[in-house]
């Protein structure tokens, strides 16, 4: 299975199986980067997996003041969901509860997509009739009176149907510490890749899942083949010297963005070497039948 090796790190001849998703991007600005970060962190909280959170979201990049619409420091976030309806609902509730509420914030479209999602066009009603619409350079914005002045919000944002979710890398290491170091390196590389995010805590997931469960009604359960403590009990995918496995799941605005993030992550984990980081790198899939996008590790080296 491990015919490939780079810098002493074995690379599985495997592939990550990923799915089509709907996604949007938002730009959140504030008087300081600190407060833009707070609004964005709040917005993207509890957004690790569509299984139970409704969406997957994270900060894509921090933006210098010159790069934002209003010339204040800002943050770009990406939000992914399985359907347009669910994405619309998540954008409305999350921006309404986490950005509208955050001091000094403003919110803009971060993507020119093929379709539009309501942003301020839905949130304006908070203004109770005192909201003001302004069209500037052909785009509509809403000014909603709030207690610290005005919440300024673009009317709509773009939606893309080209988004891909579920790209991933499995970092297998000889110790839990080495697995964490490898996963951190991968997460940092993904974070630096534009148009791609790793939605799990710090970009890392330790509870990889398989489809189905012995219990009725549970859609997913622990990925037993990669649990080191189940090595003797199930058909394990782990070698005898693997002590811990961590996964980085990647969503991107396009298949190319996911591939670029996986490529960067793979390079970062390989550079770390088998002693400091992972001694083997794999990828999660479901046999190739569920997802349309297959990212083969050998193509990303």
């Amino acid at each position, binding site marked *: 299975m491990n015919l490939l090796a780079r810098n002493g790190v074995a690379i599985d001849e495997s592939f990550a199986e990923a799915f089509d998703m709907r996604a949007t991007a938002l730009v959140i600005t504030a008087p300081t980067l600190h407060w833009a970060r707070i609004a964005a962190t709040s917005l993207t909280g509890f957004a690790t997996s569509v299984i139970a959170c409704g969406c997957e979201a994270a900060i894509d990049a921090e933006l210098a003041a010159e790069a934002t*619409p*209003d*010339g204040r420091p800002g943050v770009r976030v990406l939000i992914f969901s399985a359907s347009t309806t669910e994405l619309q609902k998540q954008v409305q509730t999350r921006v309404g509860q986490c950005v509208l509420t955050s001091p000094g914030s403003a919110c803009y479209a971060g993507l020119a997509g093929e379709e539009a999602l309501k942003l301020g066009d839905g949130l304006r009603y908070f203004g109770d009739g*005192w909201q*003001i619409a*302004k069209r*500037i350079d052909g785009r509509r914005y809403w000014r909603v009176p709030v207690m610290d*002045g005005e919440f300024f919000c673009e009317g709509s944002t773009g939606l893309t149907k080209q988004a891909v979710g579920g790209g991933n890398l499995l970092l297998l290491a000889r110790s839990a510490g080495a697995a964490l170091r490898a996963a951190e390196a991968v997460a940092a590389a993904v974070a630096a890749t534009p148009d791609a995010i790793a939605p799990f805590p710090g970009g890392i997931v330790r509870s990889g899942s398989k489809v189905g469960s012995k219990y009725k009604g549970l859609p997913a359960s622990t990925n037993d083949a990669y649990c080191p403590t189940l090595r003797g009990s199930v058909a394990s995918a782990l070698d005898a010297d693997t002590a811990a496995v961590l996964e980085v799941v990647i969503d991107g605005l396009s298949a190319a963005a996911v591939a670029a993030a996986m490529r960067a992550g793979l390079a970062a984990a390989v550079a770390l070497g088998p002693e400091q980081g992972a001694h083997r790198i794999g990828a999660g899939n479901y046999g190739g039948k569920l997802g349309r996008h297959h990212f083969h590790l050998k193509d990303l080296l």
Partner: protein
Amino acid sequence: MSGVRLLRRAEPPQRVDLSALRPEALAGLAEGAIARLPLGTARAPLAVGDLFRVQAGDEADLVIEGGSPRFDQLGAGMTTGILLIEGDAGCCLGRGMRGGRITLRGGAGAFAASGLTGGVIEVTGDAGDFLGGAAVGERTGMAGGVVVVRGGSGARAADRMRRGLMVIEGAAGPQLASHMIAGTVVCARPGPHPGTLMRRGTLLLGEAALLPTFVPAGLAADSAFLRLLARALRPLSAAAARLADSAAARFVGDMATLGKGEILLAGSIPAG
């Protein structure tokens, strides 16, 4: 090849309706066909060839060299292309224009940009009364697009304006933005009683004497809206952008009517 050029021969003997001279309508026409287009509004017939020497072209790019206060409806109903006029215009410059760009190197008569819904009109001189205003019997004035006047304007500019952006760099006449419905007007030196009976909309003004029916209302410090507006104004007019940068006080009104309009007054305007 370049666009059509019309070179004025002499001052016209009557008022003329130049709405036929839309750049997109003339592009590709032969010189003879352009010269035969009727323009007259009086009993004596008058065609393009009587007033202009014609140089045909194939681009939606029309230059009229030499203007006149009798040249009415210049660029009216334009949808695309560029119209450059070296000289003055009569009434209704760019009336009902939906797209494209008009540059007038001169002064415009009354009702310039009236009924505008898209495109950009720039006037380097002064504009007459009812710039972007509603014509008689119309419910709304300009409803989109951008108007930039480097000089001043007559009375009641932006009357019943519904949408769009108007910048008057010079002095405006009385009752700027009367009955305004929505949109944005920027003017450093408005005449008396700006915003008379305005319902909604934004006036960004330099020093102004306001009606008592405008009441002070807090200006959001470090407003994201003003920052975005300033950024949008910068390529159109440096003076207008400076006003947005220096907005220091906000009034809402006109309380004699709906009262959801706002007047933003600039503080000390930074030099530059």
